[in-house]
């Protein structure tokens, strides 16, 4: 995985002619990138805590559906999500329209606030899911014990939830920070202009505007170093939860009965749902007109994307399980370093990764012929950090709770994986498969760098429709993409949760 991220970078640097230096504009890009990524990650995680808590202790009809739908912004191609967001928060969006009769508005979101708003829109669901996983990983027995001791919600927060958050939050923060670090189109579009130049855009400029591969590699290296620093910090802050194992009793909560708490939780859930689902509803509404007569090539592209998504999901799991296992086995700083290495793929610039792959492969094989497998591979690398976030803690809990028993029974290797770890990890595995498949489905990825006309994936076809002025058909394709991504996510995620209560 490091090979994929650092190796491609090295390939680009190797192909460069002569060394390069960075100008003041590049440093401004570094500063802006850090600022927006820190703000976006902090806000996403902060807001996700009450939402995840509300979702963890409330049961209501449609809760599962809501949790799935909340994941949608994260899975959408940037362009679709941004247009959906603008349909609500833009100058002619719903809010501006509602304010107009009052003589107010239109509201102006362009600038740092727009960048942060968009990044929160993209990443709040992810943060919520990661934190919710943490909540679900606290065995039901602990809550039962807390109830028997007469814990109030406040006591539960202090004794159970805060230690869990200490172990989960740094990782969630880090993942979102890394995503925002490599953001480019979102930052630029909602940042309102070149003020919002991120390092990734500077890489883009160095590569395609100046064809200065040395500078592109140098900028990519800086982006990488910043991410690695952030990762080191996050792992230093994280404290393992150590909740031990339970007997898989259905989770019931006794500490959340108060009316005030119900109202509070309800409010958080409603706010998050509104914030995330209204832009989605706009995307759906726009797409309905176009989805009925999509050209056959869009359906073919959808089929290709499905194949890539499934391949990518399988690949992600094949990569993530051994890394998570090794990280748990090694433990301590070495295990953390291994986890961090797995996270680093996300810090790699997609452009540099694609270009590096191209440089490496071009002398050996036709990159165009390998476009689809390469897309699956790069998508898997991009999904790996999320997979590790979800799998490693659960793996650690499973090993802590049942490792000795498995040892004493001589359960090793594939058998241990099949009988002990996989069943204990069903939820995070379902989540990982669903997320990686859906992410791959919506990612434009390296396919845009070397595609044959006949190899277009659905996101690429969507961009092509837009580039051909066919905005209505593009909206239809976006709806199809949304439905397929969510469908994939739901099926896998659901598969991980069925019977998980028995």
């Amino acid at each position, binding site marked *: 995985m490091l090979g994929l991220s650092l190796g491609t970078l090295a390939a680009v640097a190797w192909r460069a002619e002569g060394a390069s230096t960075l100008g003041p504009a590049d440093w401004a890009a570094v500063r802006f990138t850090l600022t927006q990524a820190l703000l976006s990650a902090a806000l996403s995680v902060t807001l996700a805590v009450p939402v995840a808590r509300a979702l963890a202790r409330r049961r209501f009809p449609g809760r599962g559906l809501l949790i799935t739908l909340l994941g949608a912004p994260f899975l959408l191609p940037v362009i679709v999500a941004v247009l959906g967001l603008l349909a609500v928060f*833009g100058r002619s969006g719903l809010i501006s329209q509602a304010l107009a009769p009052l003589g107010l508005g239109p509201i102006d979101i362009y600038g740092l606030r727009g960048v942060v708003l968009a990044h929160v829109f993209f990443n709040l669901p992810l943060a919520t899911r990661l934190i919710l996983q943490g909540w679900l990983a606290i065995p039901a027995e602990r809550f039962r014990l807390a109830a028997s001791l007469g814990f109030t919600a406040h006591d539960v927060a202090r004794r159970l939830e805060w230690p869990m958050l200490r172990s989960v939050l740094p990782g969630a923060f880090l993942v979102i920070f890394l995503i925002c670090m490599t953001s480019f189109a979102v930052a630029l*579009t909602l940042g309102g202009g070149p003020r919002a130049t991120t390092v990734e855009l500077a890489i883009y400029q160095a590569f395609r505007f100046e064809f200065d591969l040395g500078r592109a590699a140098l900028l990519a290296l800086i982006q990488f170093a910043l991410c690695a620093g952030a990762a080191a910090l996050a792992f230093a802050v994280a404290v393992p939860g150590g909740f031990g194992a339970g007997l898989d009793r259905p989770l019931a909560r006794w500490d959340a009965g108060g009316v005030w708490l119900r109202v509070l939780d309800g409010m958080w859930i409603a706010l998050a749902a509104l914030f995330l689902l209204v832009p989605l509803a706009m995307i759906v509404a726009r797409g309905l007109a176009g989805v009925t007569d999509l050209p056959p090539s869009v359906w073919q592209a959808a089929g290709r994307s499905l194949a890539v998504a499934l391949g990518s999901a399988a690949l992600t799991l094949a990569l993530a399980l051994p890394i998570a296992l090794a990280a748990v086995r090694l433990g301590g700083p070495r295990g953390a370093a291994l986890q961090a290495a797995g996270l680093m793929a996300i810090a790699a610039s997609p452009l540099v990764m694609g270009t590096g792959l191209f440089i490496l492969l071009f002398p050996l094989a036709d990159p165009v012929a390998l476009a689809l497998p390469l897309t699956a591979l790069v998508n898997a690398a991009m999904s790996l950090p999320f997979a590790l976030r979800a799998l490693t803690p659960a793996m650690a809990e499973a090993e802590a709770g049942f490792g000795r028993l498995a040892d004493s029974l001589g359960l090793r290797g594939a058998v241990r994986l099949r009988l002990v770890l996989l069943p204990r990890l069903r939820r995070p595995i379902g989540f990982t498969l669903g997320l990686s498949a859906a992410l791959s489905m919506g990612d434009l990825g390296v396919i845009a760098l070397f595609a044959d006309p006949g190899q277009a994936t659905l996101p690429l076809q969507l961009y092509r429709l837009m580039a051909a002025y066919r905005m209505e058909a593009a909206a239809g394709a976006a709806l199809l993409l949304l439905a397929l991504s969510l469908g994939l996510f739901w099926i896998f995620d659901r598969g991980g949760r069925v019977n998980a209560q028995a």
Partner: protein
Amino acid sequence: MRLPIIAAGILCATTAVAETPVLTVYTYDSFVSDWGPGPKIEAAFEAVCGCDLRLVAAGDGAALLARLRLEGARTEADVVLGLDTNLTAAAAETGLFAPHGIEPPALDLPVAWDDTTFLPYDWGHFAFVYDKTRLPEPPDSFEALIAAEGLKIVIQDPRSSTPGLGLLMWVKAAHGDRAPEIWAGLAPRILTVTKGWSEAYGMFLQGEADMVLSYTTSPAYHLIAEGDDSKAAAGFAEGHYLQVEVAGRVASSDQPELAQDFLRFMLSDAFQSVIPTTNWMYPAVTPEAGLPEGFQTLFRPETSLLLPADRAAAVRDAALAEWRDALSR
């Protein structure tokens, strides 16, 4: 017993394929899409050339050139189609292109063409597109745009987008040393800068901005394909910057004659008549049947601005710095 027969069949098939020469053309992505010129042009050329035309897409014009530079002389490309005059200087400098060696037919370009390496296949003017129902009186110059309080435009980033770079050159060609001043004046009008054309145009259609940087030919799509005549391009007194899209043949090609055939075909009616309603640009040679219905209604700038390729390359970095400084404040 059937196995040898099948094997023989495969053998015949492969020899048959091997005898058909393959012409590889690198181009930008929207050219090869189902809605671009690619499919029709592939069919039309293959009908006459006795060859297999292989279109390979790589992002946009700038990505295309970067791809070619990465591959160098080992590239499989025989022809590169889709560079514009902002890129031809850098492209020629790579030494990867051979002179076209063709006597072109009379070209219907707003400017004279004497490049011996690259041949144009279509052209258009950059312009701000607006909606007549929402903006009855559009500004008629950059000065007027600066003065139009409350008006918002969306433009593209010159570092990642062809029209974005076109606007940079437009302001430079029209206002020269006053360019920084113009950009400073435009800054409050610019709602935002997007990565590519699609984002900006999508935002405009969604009503997010009053005008969007696009082409004078953009309204033709709405008129011809959608029967919607509400979109128009605002004419600017300074004149409009011209984009000429060109193709050239690659020096290392193993099919030099076929490549020349393709360049000749490119300027023939079969190719040129496809351009207006697929690429939504003006063909370099007006087809015998004339331009499609609707193109006559388009705004035609009286003055075409175009920096020569070498000059465009020379002023580019300074113009970009001016742009960034003015808009970053």
